[in-house]
């Protein structure tokens, strides 16, 4: 499969870019020319070869660079990774899920050997070779959730289930779209979704919660969410908003193609076997709209979605200052031709 890990940055000089394989790999989120919130949950089953859903846990060309970025964020702000004390069993569940999936699907990069509780984990891209006792946190250099998520792309939340509700009682968030784990940890499902406009009234969260409370082991699900980010910046946290907010004023009709990035979140949900908690993974993908424009259907569709987006969503997603310029840039790629149904490139 020949993954070549890129050397690149998500801050300062922003050397991040997608290869042509990376562009085909991108999970474009719009299946039609307009967008509105929906409970767009589907089974997390194997997708096409080369797509972001080919494997349960996707490792791509940005793996090593994203893990370096995560380490930088955690060094500056350790509160990006937190777990309430009762979540230790769920942390081990998560470690097992990720190590198992990564070693099964990418055997040339990751190896897991299990002998009872004695586990041996090899991560070749990051140069890690670790023997440890499953269940003994003292045998790892970090708590289990932090240990494994420092080696896996995407933010993760561990949701405890009690009182017929889900509680965000642990997580790591270093690449989040303007939400704060430190602020939200300990909240219930409706509480942490409190700031989202329109969706409560549409009943989206009621239905989603009901669905998730019944999530079954071995039957993970996924959905896509999206926003837009200026520059390929992974860490668009509220904690650092006063550092990145002004990026939004730097977009012009000329530079929008390079500056404005579609940020897609592939969100996966798994029921965990020992703790009965749920893993909620938020795997982010960035692609400049210039790269999107290399796929004619995607350029037409994104142009139309941005034009018809409800004002509440424009505001909530933080697009107000640059949406017009992005639309102007994309307009050169929209000849008005009809688009085929579905998210695929043709």
């Amino acid at each position, binding site marked *: 499969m020949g993954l070549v890990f890129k050397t690149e940055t998500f801050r300062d000089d922003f050397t991040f870019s997608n290869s042509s394989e990376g562009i085909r790999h991108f999970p474009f989120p719009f299946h039609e020319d307009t967008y509105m919130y929906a409970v767009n949950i589907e089974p997390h089953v194997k997708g096409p070869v080369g797509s972001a859903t080919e494997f349960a846990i996707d490792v791509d060309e940005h793996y090593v660079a994203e893990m370096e970025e995560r380490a930088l964020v955690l060094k500056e702000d350790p509160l990006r990774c937190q777990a309430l004390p009762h979540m230790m069993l769920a942390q081990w569940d998560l470690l097992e899920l990720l190590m198992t999936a990564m070693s099964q699907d990418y055997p040339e990069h990751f190896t897991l050997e299990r002998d009872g509780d004695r586990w041996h984990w090899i991560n070749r891209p990051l140069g890690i070779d670790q023997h440890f006792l499953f269940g003994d946190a003292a045998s790892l250099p970090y708590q289990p959730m932090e240990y494994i998520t420092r080696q896996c792309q995407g933010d993760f939340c561990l949701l405890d289930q009690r009182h017929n509700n889900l509680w965000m009682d642990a997580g790591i968030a270093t690449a989040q779209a303007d939400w704060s784990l*430190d*602020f939200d940890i*300990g*909240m219930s499902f409706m509480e942490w979704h*409190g700031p989202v406009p329109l969706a409560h009234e549409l009943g989206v969260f009621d239905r989603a919660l009901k669905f998730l409370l019944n999530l079954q082991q071995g039957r993970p699900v996924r959905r896509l969410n999206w926003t837009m980010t200026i520059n390929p910046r992974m860490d668009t946290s*509220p904690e650092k*908003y006063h550092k*990145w907010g002004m990026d939004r*004023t730097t977009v012009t009709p000329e530079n929008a193609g390079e500056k404005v990035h579609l940020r897609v979140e592939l969100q996966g949900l798994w029921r965990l076997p020992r703790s009965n908690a749920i893993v909620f993974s938020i795997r982010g993908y960035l692609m400049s709209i210039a790269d999107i424009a290399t796929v004619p259907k995607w350029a037409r569709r994104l142009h139309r979605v941005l034009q018809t987006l409800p004002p509440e969503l424009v505001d909530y997603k933080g697009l107000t200052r640059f949406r017009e310029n992005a639309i102007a840039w994309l307009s050169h790629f929209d000849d008005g031709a009809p688009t085929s149904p579905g998210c695929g490139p043709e």
Partner: protein
Amino acid sequence: MLVSGIKSRPVYGQLALDLYAKRHLVAAEGEGALAVLDCLRAVSADVLSRVTILYAGGASAGQSHLDRLRTLNADYCHQFPTIQTLLFRLNGVLTTASMGTRLYASGTEGFIGQVIQLGLSHGVDHHSIITEHRGSLARRVQCTHCKGIIENVTTNVATCAHCGVNLLVRDHYSRRLGAFMGVSADAEEPGSLPASEQMFP
């Protein structure tokens, strides 16, 4: 009563005695004393002999209601000079509290939030704490950038007392922190602030 569409904000009710409790631990601030009086006025001496009142008088109110609280003849009623000193005592009381203790809180939202926060740290389920909002609508705000807490914020835009960033107060509340979220108000155009309004008088 505070009513709002903020999903993460607790719903504050009315103080009502849990008649099955063996000990009633009442924390009140400022005008919260009036809620305590309304709740305990017609209660028997037997019940009052199991009531502890911790009061920070005058914190958010112009006057202390201590004299009126004393007329209740509760088992213990003490006034603390500040909310901080009250919370220090409450922490001590909760450390040795036994099964059957019921916790109550009344006063401003920031005060109730800190009592709930303290309760949580002692393993008290937040659902079990009986609360009533009285007095100012002022918000307790956490600056998301430096994590400092700013007390008694009455405007939608406020300057962080710790790091100096101009904050917009979001309608998002953390029970664990007992605070609303404050996020930079002029990050996109430094110096260009939305009009400050007295939104939480």
